[in-house]
């Protein structure tokens, strides 16, 4: 990993370590080193540096909620806003536990898109009606409830990023 200004350029080994950690963040430095053909001390140094520079932001736990008897519903909530209030609304949405992700987006109008979870449709509606609709600057809201999930992955190093990686490597 090379640092230039506020950005870092990762080399192939860094990316391969990240991919293995994304698959299983609990595997040991020794196992990762063995898989990649490098010493465990090299793996340790690389991971520590990526943690230090917040390239690795955190390690998480994926819970299978169905196994503990919880079947939450997920919805994508599009909030149409007064442009002057948009940022404040997005920041407020980000504070709610029900909101897993929130983005501002611009198509024909400025909108906020939020991924929201709730116990059931009643709870989802109450949350939107009591916590989102009353926020100053909310013009209207459209909600799409997810019926089936086909894919859910964190970012992985893909082909589209090869050119950026190569540029990074030259730094």
């Amino acid at each position, binding site marked *: 990993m090379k640092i230039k200004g506020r950005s870092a350029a990762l080399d192939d080994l860094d990316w391969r370590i990240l991919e293995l950690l994304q698959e299983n963040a609990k595997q040991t430095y020794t196992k990762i080193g063995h898989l990649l053909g490098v010493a465990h001390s090299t793996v340790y140094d690389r991971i520590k540096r990526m943690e230090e520079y917040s390239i690795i932001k955190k390690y998480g736990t994926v819970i299978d909620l169905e196994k503990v008897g919880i079947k939450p519903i997920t919805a994508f909530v599009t909030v149409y806003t007064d442009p002057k209030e948009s940022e404040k609304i997005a920041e407020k949405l980000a504070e709610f536990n029900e909101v897993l992700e929130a983005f501002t987006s611009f198509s024909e109008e400025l909108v906020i898109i939020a991924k929201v979870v709730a116990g059931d449709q009643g709870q989802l509606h109450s949350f*939107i*009606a009591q916590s989102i*609709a*009353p926020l100053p600057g909310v013009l*209207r*809201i*459209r*909600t799409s409830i997810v019926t089936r999930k086909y894919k859910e992955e964190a970012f992985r190093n893909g082909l589209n990023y090869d050119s950026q990686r190569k540029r990074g490597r030259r730094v």
Partner: protein
Amino acid sequence: MSVSPSPSKILRNLLRNEAFYFFTSIGNYTGQHAGSLREFMQKIGEIDIKSLEFHLYRQDFEKWIAQTLGDARFAAEIKNLRSRKVAGNLLREQLSNVVSRRYQELRGKMSFKIIT
């Protein structure tokens, strides 16, 4: 026995988080809200019929009237309307009648109090 709040309390201007927000289905907010009983009466005359049907049969109107405005008798009238299972323009008409009647009644009581 519950004590009915004063007409002025029922007719007060509400805070943002007390207002009634009109949706057409789960999570789909129309952008219209009512911050008082007077505004509620006006919105009923113009809001999408789908929104009136959605809220009536979820019992949202009667809950808001009972819990936020504190008018149990009025909430019972809405409940009675719900039990008749009306829909479409007939629902708008009947709901408007019930709400307008109660609004005028409360306004009348306020005027009476001022005179006496």
